């Protein structure tokens, strides 16, 4: 049975090596159950996908973990599915994590699950809320307000009105629906009063909404979508393409560049993808709305630490919503923002 022994040795050796390359735990002083050491509170952050947005968020979260002396696991579901997100949270619970922040993938259908989590440990929603669940608080951008700022950028780019097309990964997440609503409310010139039915193809003020094109978080498809709209509206000079998720504006810009229509077609983006920022510098993109993912991470980890150590000190408004303000970036202020961002990411 020599073969079997060497086989087992092989596997153990390699798997041990793999297990050993978990720098997260090493960095934080090893296994919290180590004898003789006072273990730190364990908190976790679970994003909704692996986008760069979460790298900035992680920087803020790590900073707060250091300041508040907690043990942080930062997890990103690699395939962006609710099934994977649930599996990660289940495992974190087993691992005696004492507070969790989640960017919820499918809010309406995960309530029962999230309530189960909230019954055991403090649960925060970050970036994408499940407002009907028993989460303690929601930290994130007020998306309708942010959508309104996108609308203002469109108005600035096409003051006489025109055609617009919206691009977003999915319309299921509330943030996508709210941003879309904010845009349309401003174009129509009405106050925002939550979500309502606003159809594609109709006119909002002087602007016709050609459609809302989803790509299921596939950047290639996002580019194809933009290219299709460009092809259908050849020669249009009053066209604005609007990306509502981080990768949409770069995908749009890439399609517009291929079609040789840079500058002729207006682009408005969301979030701070590097290509978006460079596009704003060259003038190809009108502007973008940036959320503050660094603060998402920082504030949520800080709040989780407080909820574990001194829960009475945490002040949360009645509806649980903690607005983390967004910023509008245009050619004037983009350079300063980029410098600050690089400093944050330690580049």
């Amino acid at each position: 049975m020599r073969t079997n022994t060497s086989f087992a040795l092989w596997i153990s050796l390699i798997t041990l090596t793999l297990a050993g390359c978990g720098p997260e735990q090493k960095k934080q002083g090893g296994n919290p159950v180590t004898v003789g050491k006072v273990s730190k509170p364990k908190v976790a952050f679970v994003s909704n996908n692996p986008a760069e947005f979460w790298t900035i968020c992680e920087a803020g979260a790590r900073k707060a973990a250091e300041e508040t002396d907690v043990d942080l696991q930062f997890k990103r579901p690699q395939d962006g599915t609710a099934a994977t997100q649930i599996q990660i949270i289940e495992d974190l619970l087993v691992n005696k994590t004492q507070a969790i922040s989640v960017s919820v993938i499918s809010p309406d259908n995960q309530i029962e699950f999230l309530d189960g989590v909230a019954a055991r440990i403090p649960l925060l929603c970050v970036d994408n809320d499940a407002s009907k669940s028993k989460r303690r608080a929601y930290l994130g951008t007020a998306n309708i307000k942010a959508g309104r700022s996108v609308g203002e950028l469109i108005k600035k780019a096409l003051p006489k009105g025109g055609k617009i097309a919206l691009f977003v990964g999915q319309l299921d997440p509330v943030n996508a629906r709210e941003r879309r609503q904010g845009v349309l409310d401003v174009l129509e010139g009405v106050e925002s009063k939550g979500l309502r039915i606003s159809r594609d193809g109709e006119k909002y003020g002087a602007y016709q909404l050609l459609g809302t094109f989803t790509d299921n978080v596939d950047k290639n498809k996002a580019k194809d979508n933009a290219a299709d709209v460009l092809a259908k509206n050849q020669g249009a000079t009053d066209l604005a393409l609007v990306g509502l998720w981080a990768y949409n504006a770069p995908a749009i810009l890439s399609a517009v560049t291929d079609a040789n229509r840079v500058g002729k077609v207006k682009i408005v983006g969301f979030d701070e993808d590097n290509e978006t920022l460079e596009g704003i510098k060259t003038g190809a993109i009108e502007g973008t709305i940036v959320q503050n993912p660094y603060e998402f991470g920082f504030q949520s980890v800080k709040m989780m630490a407080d909820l574990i150590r001194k829960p009475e000190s945490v002040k949360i408004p009645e509806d649980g919503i903690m607005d983390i303000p967004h910023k509008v970036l245009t050619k004037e202020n983009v350079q300063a923002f980029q410098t600050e961002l690089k400093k944050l990411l330690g580049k």
Partner: protein
Amino acid sequence: MSPPESKNMFTAFFSNPTVGRILGVFLLVVVLYTLMIGIEENARTVENHQNLARRIGEWGILTLGVGFVIITGGIDLSIGSVVCLSAVSFGILLENGANPYVATLVVLTGAGLIGLFHGYLVTKLNLQPFVVTLCGLFIYRGMAQFLTLIDFKKWMDPNLAAGTRILRDSSRDVGVGGRTDLTSFFWLQKGEWLGIPTPMWLFGILALLAAIFLHASVYGRYLFALGYNEQAARYAGVNTNRFKVIAYFLCSLLAGFGGILFLMKINSASPSNAGNWFELYAITGAVLGGTSLRGGEGTVIGIILGAAILPLLKTLVIFAGIPSDMEFSAIGLALLLGTLADELLRRRSEAARKGA
């Protein structure tokens, strides 16, 4: 495949390649399990074992299905999409107020028909299984996306005005989070009996039936025979086409059932990503469990062990604190090494057998 006739039963038993393969995957499971409970005290809890059992049950059902097809020397790449289409259809039926038992019946019938269709194309039209099921991979996901476009509530409205649009602008996630009368049915996915989660029970029962079919019935012998050498089996009077169709039918049927469990697990299904990669996970599980892609080889016990590996690895990744960005590489590497070791083991035991 030859029964041990040697006087030295012990040597014969261990140099049998099938036994060698099972031992290989068994050791891999033991090593992963030992690592998991060694790394983290919390991994020893009952809760963790229940989580794992539930996931192994879910994967196992799919792995079992593809096992049948692989044993016949075929392949089914459409499993993930069948899971997706079943989950989405099941979700839509429930959204529109269907009785869950009726919905299950409808979905399983659909999945079974898909399997028969694959079997027909592979046997009667002699198309390559790889191509047939690869096309299926695209078609069924597309069908799932299209289904979510239809506004059934509007369509079923008796006062529907002529010319009203019943198609939505974009595909959407289906979800049954709003229905409260499904708790008793969802016990099938979320419940437990004697401390063991129901999906594990379901998998156990199905595996037992599969074991009887494959290892204790003459039909199982036909299946292996046709996978090992189709022509020889045909000359021996086996209706090879019929058994191939049965294999594809069972595979899609089980994938359809997996889709139902999937929807119940997360209360929702996204046509764009539900079941993504599941076919590859299932095939990996079956192959690690000793089912040969060349056909004619495989055991239910191996498939059970093979199905346990991926859930174990995924949990290990979290407990070991491996960064999310390295998850795929860690899982892939561990699987590759498992396969390599398995291959080495097989060669040695084959050499030992020839030498004996």
